[in-house]
């Protein structure tokens, strides 16, 4: 079966449960901002002969619909992987552009919690099994194995990196609520004054004062942002700056969904000066 996904994270989970019965490619590269992907005709060619398209949903990959339409693939099954996720930060009341690029159905970066990875894998398995009935048992076995490996890894990470709990951190963009909640990080603020809005000088000044008055040790940003702003703040304070992998493939060595967490947790642990080897 041929599968296309919006992001590399979904692609890796498809690989984990689809094994060698599935050929999968991703539209966005791991180091790309998944909010903004240019709608290239070559992406439509990828989707043209696919059986299934797995999208992130929650308005993260709005571009996917144009690629799907442009593919002219009438048989394509489109699956939104967010349907069973317990969404965080669902806005209450009227949502408008004064709030920045806010997602009206909740924060869409849900794959950054391994527990949500299991939910994604179940949705993927159901769809693969429905279209490839002969492979149903195979997919279910792969799913059980994936879930077991996630549980074991999560148990290890929560123990090994337990001293990250309560650590204060400033993120560039609000990509990390699921990750922070899972591993106990305390998000103090964001460099963006509102989601998707460029940091302003007054916001940077506010951040500098916040870091000084609250002894915040770390600013973390996604790999697709320039490090100019975090480094500028670092010159004015004692804060450290790191880049975290927002997706599989965003940093060297992050080649699987498990690497995503292992690498990010190690980067954070090292930046905070915690020894976990």
């Amino acid at each position, binding site marked *: 079966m041929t599968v296309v996904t919006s992001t590399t994270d979904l692609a890796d989970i498809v690989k984990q449960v689809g094994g060698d019965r599935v050929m999968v490619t991703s539209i966005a590269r791991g180091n790309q901002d998944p909010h903004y992907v240019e709608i290239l*005709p070559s992406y439509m060619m990828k989707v043209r002969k696919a059986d299934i398209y797995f999208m992130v949903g929650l308005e993260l990959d709005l571009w996917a619909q144009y690629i799907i339409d442009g593919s002219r693939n*009438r048989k394509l099954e489109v699956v939104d992987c967010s349907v069973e996720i317990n969404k965080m930060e669902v806005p209450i009341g009227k949502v408008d552009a004064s709030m920045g690029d806010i997602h009206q159905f909740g924060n869409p970066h849900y794959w950054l919690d391994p527990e949500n990875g299991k939910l994604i894998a179940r949705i993927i398995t159901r769809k693969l099994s429905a279209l490839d009935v002969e492979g149903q048992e195979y997919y279910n076995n792969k799913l059980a194995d994936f879930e077991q490996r996630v549980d074991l890894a999560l148990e290890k990470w929560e123990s090994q990196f337990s001293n990250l709990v309560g650590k204060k951190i400033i993120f560039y963009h609000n990509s990390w609520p699921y990750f922070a909640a899972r591993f106990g990080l305390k998000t103090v603020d964001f460099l963006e004054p509102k989601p*998707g*809005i460029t940091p302003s000088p007054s916001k940077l000044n506010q951040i500098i004062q916040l870091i000084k008055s609250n002894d915040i040790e770390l600013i973390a940003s996604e790999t697709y942002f320039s490090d100019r702003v975090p480094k500028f703040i670092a010159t004015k304070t004692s804060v450290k700056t790191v880049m975290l992998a927002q997706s599989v493939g965003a940093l060297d060595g992050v080649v699987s969904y498990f690497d995503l967490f292992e690498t990010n947790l190690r980067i954070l642990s090292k930046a905070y000066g915690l020894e976990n080897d």
Partner: protein
Amino acid sequence: MDKQIVGGLLLTAFLFGQTTINPDFSVIGDLIIDQSEDGIDLSSAGIEMVIQGYVNPFARADVYIHKHNDESALELEEAVITIERGLPLGLGLRAGKFRPDIGKINKDHAHLFPFIQAPKSMANILGEEFWSPTGLEGSILLPLPWYTKLSIGYFDEGFGGHKHMLNDKSNGDDDYQGKDEEEGLSNGVLSGRWSHFIDLNDVTHLEVGASGYSGDEKSLLWADLKFKWRPDKYRSLTIQGEVFQLNENREAHENDLNSQYDEENDKVKIIGYTFINYQFNKAWNMGLIGDFSTFDISDDEEDKYVDKSNYNFALFFGYSPVEESSVLRIRIAPDGNDINLMAQLIWSLGPHKPHRY
């Protein structure tokens, strides 16, 4: 004619579809500040209202309504139903009033340009808002390893029937309206394009196209090329150019009171433009645009809607301090022995949909 066809299409959608879901509605506006001999002119290219949504699982509709500067009437710029996933064999269909798949720039709305004004030589031929007739267009994705599309359309009128020069205070006058209507009576035309899109690598892409047009006493051969290198979110280099050969029937040409061509020229004309645009961070881009035509523009005072130069060049800058849909553009261009400075502030209200390549 346009209104009847488009109204019929939309009415069909409303009558036979049952849905409580509203389409997306957005508005794009601007302010233009232009340096002139009399001082500073403030104007607008107009307000564009866009309504977009799915009619059913297979078809979507896009409606663009334009309110021009200094004109009271709203103008329907596009109202089109597009079917892309509902037909077999990689076929697609567009029906209504829309910008045909001919060349590259003809399909883009002005707010998507990195520069302020459309290339003058193209606007002089195609019309200020380019060619947006009423008709039907079919296309097919050819079964080749790369993306290649063949489109063929039949339309009710030829190009060039619509001109709105920026800051032209004569817009909307009776002569102008009459000219529009007169040109709308022309015979149907056929147009088509064969385009190819090639990934040179993950971040570098090339699109080439060849188009043709026949009817309305004219024929066209048209070539377009777009090269884009986009290594990351905030940096990109775009080089785009188009050139076309216009063949005009001399008899029809002589009957045209607003003719732009002198009789010494052959009836074959060459028109083209090219631009280079470099975005060097999230907020800033800059570039250079040049256009040319091989014919002289008439000095006839009655012909108010044409420029007087064969060659035009301009430097342009763009600044998006907050997000990409609100942008300040600056244009610096030679104007005789002087330099003309123009600025445009564009804003957008409503959903910001992703744009196709």
